[in-house]
Every structure is written in structure tokens, then in C-alpha cells.
């Protein structure tokens, strides 16, 4: 099975926070857990989100094996197995692991796995008005990002980096 990934092209994040609210709505979270979060350091905006790491530190840190990586490469948490110890939160280098105080369990981005099953794009990516959230086949995405990084240093080529389907 092909691996899927999600990546924000930071250079094009304009700090609207729509991804955050789309995620909260999709996952039914109230105030508290922010599975994606945009830090404002205007003129830069820094999205904090789960990278679904190949060697996921959260998974390695979990004492109850509540965190696993499925065959698509999506790192998931089984809330039934979670004991609420927060080891995964400390282990995550991105600050992407969150804690749901209402249910006393760690929560994380599931890459909208249910939406993917229905051929729908992740909620955050769908809302994004600059289309700076790329998702899909990991291999193709890696190539796109490498290209994007080299172009983003050049303001003219920067325009070519986009998730928008330009006719």
C-alpha cells in the first residue's frame, strides 16, 4: 500500500488559522487540544503539526504501545490503550502531541484517515486558502517539497509552488 504524508509549505502559510478550526470541527474538539496550530511570528507563520514520522518518537516513547503506524504510514493512537502519561508529548520534537483534559488521553493528528477512506482530502488542507498544505503519496510529495524548497529561495519561482490547480 502506498504511504501517505501531510506537509505544510511554511513559506506560504499566511496565518489565517482556518486549518485549526477545520481540524477542531472534524475531530469534535473544543478548547484545548490543537492537532494543528499556527504560531505567529509575523511576517512568518509557523504551523505546528504531526509529521507522521517514519521512526516516530511518540511511538517509541509510549509505554503501553498505544501508538502505532498503519500500513499507509499514518501514526495513530489507540485511546483505549493510552494511560495519559504524556511521555509521547515530551518525545515529539514538533510539539504536535496534544492532551485532551476532558478524557485524560493523549490525542494526535490522524491525517483524517476516515476522510481519506472516502476519497476526501484532510480537513485542514481542504480549507486552506493559500493551498500550502500538501498531502498525498509520500514519494511524490517528497519530490514536490524538494522542488518547492529550491524555488522558494527565488521570489519569481516562488509563485510556482502551489497546491492550486491552475488551468
Amino acid at each position, binding site marked *: 500500500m502506498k504511504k501517505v504524508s501531510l506537509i505544510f509549505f511554511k513559506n506560504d502559510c*499566511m*496565518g*489565517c*488559522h*482556518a486549518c*485549526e*478550526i*477545520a481540524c*477542531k*470541527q*472534524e475531530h469534535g474538539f*473544543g*478548547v484545548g487540544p*490543537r492537532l494543528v496550530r499556527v504560531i505567529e511570528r*509575523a*511576517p*512568518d*507563520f509557523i504551523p505546528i503539526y504531526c509529521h507522521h514520522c517514519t521512526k516516530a518518537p511518540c511511538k517509541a516513547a509510549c509505554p503501553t504501545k498505544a501508538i502505532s503506524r498503519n500500513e499507509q504510514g499514518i501514526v495513530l493512537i489507540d485511546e483505549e490503550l493510552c494511560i495519559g502519561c504524556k511521555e509521547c508529548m515530551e518525545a515529539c520534537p514538533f510539539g504536535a502531541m496534544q492532551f485532551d483534559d476532558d478524557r485524560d488521553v493523549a490525542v494526535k493528528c490522524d491525517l483524517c484517515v476516515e476522510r481519506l477512506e472516502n476519497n476526501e482530502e484532510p*480537513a485542514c488542507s*481542504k*480549507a*486552506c*486558502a*493559500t*493551498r500550502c498544505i500538501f498531502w498525498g503519496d509520500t514519494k511524490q510529495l517528497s519530490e514536490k517539497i524538494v522542488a518547492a524548497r529550491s524555488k522558494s529561495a527565488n*521570489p*519569481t519561482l*516562488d*509563485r*510556482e509552488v*502551489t497546491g*492550486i490547480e*491552475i488551468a
Partner: protein
Amino acid sequence: MGDITKVRTVCRSCHGGCGVIAHVKDGKVIKVEGDPESPISHGTLCSKCLAITQLAYHPDRITYPMKKGNNGWERISWDEALDTVIGKFKEVIKEYGPESIVIGQGTGRDYESHLYRFANLLGTPNVLTAGHMCYVSRVAATLITCGNLPICDYPADPKCIVMWACNPQWTNPDEYKGEGFWRAYKRGSKLIVIDPRKGFLAKKADLWLQLRPGTDGALAFGFLHVIIEEGLYDETFVRNYIHGWEEFKKRVQEYPLERVEGITWVKKELIRNAAKIYATVKPACINWGVPTEQTLNCTDCTRLLTGLMAVTGNLDVPGGNAFFVPPPVRPVSQFSRHKDLSPEQWKKRLGGEQYKLAARVALITPKVAWDAILTGKPYPLKAGLLCGTNPVITRANAREAYEALKKINFLAVIDFFLTPTAELADVFLPAGTWLEQNHVADNWKRHGYALARQKVVEIGECWQDHKIFLELGKRMGQEWWDTVEDALDYLLEPSGLTWEQFKEKGFLKGEQVYHKYMDKGFSTPTGKVELYSTVLEKWGHDPLPKYREVPEGPVSKPELFKEYPYILNAGLRTPTFFHSANRMIPWLREIRPDPIVEIHPKTAAKHGIEDGDWVTIESPRGHVKERAKLTDSIDPRVVVAEHGWWFPEVKDPGHGWDTANINILTDNSHESMDPVMGATNLRVLLCKLSPCVEDQEELR
């Protein structure tokens, strides 16, 4: 448990327009998603729209009519509420005349057609909106200059975009959605950004001009000076379609780049470079924002920017600033029955003699309303109906607005929540959100579209605003329709569609034609672009635009500047809030819990202010506190503060309206306003700073 049904509709969490698919389960909206087929938003949405379920089903939302009795607010029936309002209005009309009733709204929310129809048929010329300093002021100034409001033609690929005092990606104002701009940018357009702050777009721009707040008009003169000096204007257009070119050129000569640099703080080489790019890379468009309007230079600044579009040949061309052809739907002006306001009543418009341009577009500046209430001059306002507006937060000199609305004899409000303004009312009429209404949306905008906003659910006893005006109108004996949908059929009649058919279709677009002036000229008295305005001349004003210093600034008031040593750039927008709205929405407030004042680190250090500290900001009119965010993206001489703040979580009826409300500091004196429009200066004033004396931890 029922199945999920999906309903296609259109957002209005700001001015609206983005396409939405609402998911409904068991009669409740459980989720909204972007509509990929929307020609406006192409499936994307902003945080405000995505949070609509938290607004619509908010525990504090008022979902039934109320009146204020001896024991505070009490629930009443719609019949009693409407009869109370109409009974009071009839009394006032009998004793004082209909002009003693003020009808008001806030920012454009797609019901001006109905609000104005009610006001005009009532016979009051006193309609209070945000239009004196936001959008309508721009429409008005372009009406007398080139006959219509020119809009950036993003779909037709501008090759150069001048983002003049606007951040459409956060604010999605009026015709513009950030998404449309971004598509054009990504197709390779050059980008020139004019902004006192280094925001996301300044980072992306080919050129960023960091001007002194409030000097946009002078900067426009600088652009024009270069364009004329270097012969970069469109000679054919200028020869055939500009009225007063020689006089205008002479006026521009008064603004050489050295002078413009001195006024604006922008290096003259940078101005020259930007002007040359704008004038030579074609097509080019200017996307202007409200800061160009919210000073005493409102009308002249709009006229100068229109002048730039005209002399460079970018007016009504593909990819320039176009006049979009509207779809075949009855315009708001016709539905509003402006012609039915008698000349006798028209003449009674408060401030109408002084602010003639505002009168031309059928509105009053708030100052004249507050004066009429507080002083009874030239005649008293005795009753009011305010819809979707919170003037004690959003209008200049908030304390005066508060005193006036507290004093007015009778006030009814239409809103979702008991805002600080609503708390001053006698009757509360609960409005439906955009999920609860049928309407031909976006019909007032000049982007060529009409959109079907269809009702998804009904919540409590809330009525869509349009129905409230319709029912009030009928009780006044005015000519209305039986139902909201009947009125929509009337609006849609020229298209040959009924509301039911339009709803299925989703939207209508006008068939775009460019260069219309070649056949018809411009819709002005001379048929040309009037850079020399025959209208302003007739009214006894300078027919040529000029730049004036704001009355309260380092140049106009050097003595005061010693005591208040910073330029306060008020009215900073955020992506999660829309003016005074949304502070009670948990998802949005989590992102932005506190009002923010941006201060340069060097400035902050002088006063011992650290990042995150609560800071007292003081102007000659009062003081408020906001939390410091230190940033070197602004000039150290400038302080930038958010607007629109009140605190729904504060349960007393004031709801903290004067704690962080930046309009406590702003001025609404007549000399601070635009002389023909009455635009208030919400943007540029003098202030001083100090850390809050209270314990910082406690404030946190």
C-alpha cells in the same frame, strides 16, 4: 439517529460570499465545509465560517424576542415585540416626524436592501451605517469621479498588483476574497505592498513601501508625480477621457518626491521604482483597503487612486480595475425605494448640508446622530432601530456613542447576542445567522455575482433580518410581500428565475464587457473621469484632490506630540474576528484570547514593557489597555492596536466595553472628518504608552 443531509449555501460570517456545504443531522448543523464549485472561494473557507456552529448554537445566543422590564430582560412574543417597536415609531412620527427615528446597521451584511426600504418608506433620511468610512465612502468618491467602483480583475490575470492598505487574506473584504488574489499572485503577478506593517504580503512582495500611517494620499501623489514626469501615462486615454488633466497635472506638481518622502517616510527611490512598475507592467490593478478611507483624506485619497488607475490606462480593462457587469437581478438601490423618500424628508438628513457626498449615498455620519440625541439639535432623534451593529465598540469616540445610545428615548436592536450596544436597548429582536436565511446574496457587491444563500435550519424563534424588516414594514402599512421568498422572486424577476430555481442554480454572473466607456463614456457630468470634479466644485469644495495632515499628528500638533509621542495606528484586523464579532466563540477566542497592541522592541524597552505585558494606551480622549506584542515589523515611532474588543465573558451589562476598546481613544470632531463624506478617523492619532500599574500576573 437520522442521516446526514448536505445543503449548499453561502457564508456571511464576514461580508460573506464563500460557498459552503452545510451538513445537517437531526435538524442540526453539525459541520460546514467549503463548496468546491463556488466561483468565489473554490472550496476554501476561513476560521470565522468554519466556527459558525459554535456561534449558531452558542449557549448565550438569544433565540427569542425580549423587552427590558423592571426586572431586566424578559421574554416576549414576536407580536408583542413588533407591536412595541411600531407603536413607539408611530408615536414619534406623530409628535416629531419620521426623521426623529434613526435606522442603523453595521458593516455590510446583505440586508441593506431591506433596511433601506423600511427606512425610506418610513420617511426617515437618517440611516446610520459604517459606510461613511468604509466601502460606501469609496463607492461615493468613485461615483463622482468615474461613475462606478473599479474592482481588481483578479480572474483575468493582472500582471502587477498594488496591495494598497489591505490584507485580503485575513479580511476578505467586500468584493475581494484573499483566495482570488492569491490565485492571481501565484500565476506570476508582480506585487507591490503599501502597509505600515511588515505582514505576510510585505514578505512576499517585490516591493514593500512602509509608509507613515495616514499618508496614503501623499504617496498616491508621489506615484502620479513620477508617472507624469517620466511620461508613463496613457496619452490616448488621458486626451480622450480625463476631465481637467492640465489642472490636475498642476496640482500633482505640488508634490515632488522630496516632499512626498518627507510626508510619507518612504524613500523617494522606492516610490519612483514602484510607480514605474505600476505604470509599465500591464495590466495592473490596485486593491485598496479601508485605511485609505478612515481619515479626513477619505474622498481625495480614493480620487487619487482612481486617478492612478485612469492615467495608466488600467480602468475597465481585463486584469486591471474593472467595472463588473452585474447579473440581471434588481439592484439594491431599486429594492430600497430611495426615490420614495420625499425631497422634503431628504433635505432633513442630519448633516446633509455639510456632508453632501454622504447624503448622495443616503447615509449620515454617526457624530450628527449622537449630537441630535444628546443636544436635540437641529432636532432630536427619539427612537432607533439598530441591526447587526455595535457602535459603542466600533465607532469613533466610543464614549459619546455610548452616552447617546443610553440617552435615546427608545432603542430596538436586531442581533444574535446581548452586546454592549444591545444591553442599552428596550427591545431585542433575535436575528438568524446565515444558516437560517434565504437570500440573493452578494447582490450589493460590484464583482458581477449574485449568490444563493439558502436556509439550512431554523433555530429557536430567530428570524432572518430580512423577515424582521418585512414584518415591521407591513405593520407600518408599507408595501412589502407576504414572505421573504416572494421578495426574492421580485429581486430575481429580471433574470427570469424564481427563488426556487435560483436556489438550484447556485449563482448568477453578469456577462462581462470591458472598455464600456468607449461607447458610453463615464457616468459623470462630463462623461469623463473627473480628476477635476465638477460635482465637488458645484458643492463649493476644491475640485482637485489634495493631501491634508490629520489634525492630531506630529506635524499638525507638535506640542501635543511631546506629551503623546507615538502615532497610534488603530484598527488592526485579525483573521478570527470580524470587527466586534466572535469574541464569544471558544475556538476563535482560544487562538486570540487577548486584545493585542504591537510595539517595536526599542519603543517597548524605553517604557519597560515586555512581550505579553498589559499596556495602558492613552490618547487625549482616554485610555484603554491591551497586551503588548513586541515586533520589529513596524516603525518604532508607530504603535498598532487591534479594534473591536469587548468581553462577553464579563457578565455585567457593560461586558467590559470600555476596557480595551480602541475607539475610546479615537476622535469624531468635525475637523477630524472628511469634509464631504464625514468619514471618521479611526486610524491615526497620537498616544502614549505605559505598562499597566496593576499586577501583571493578576491581569493575565
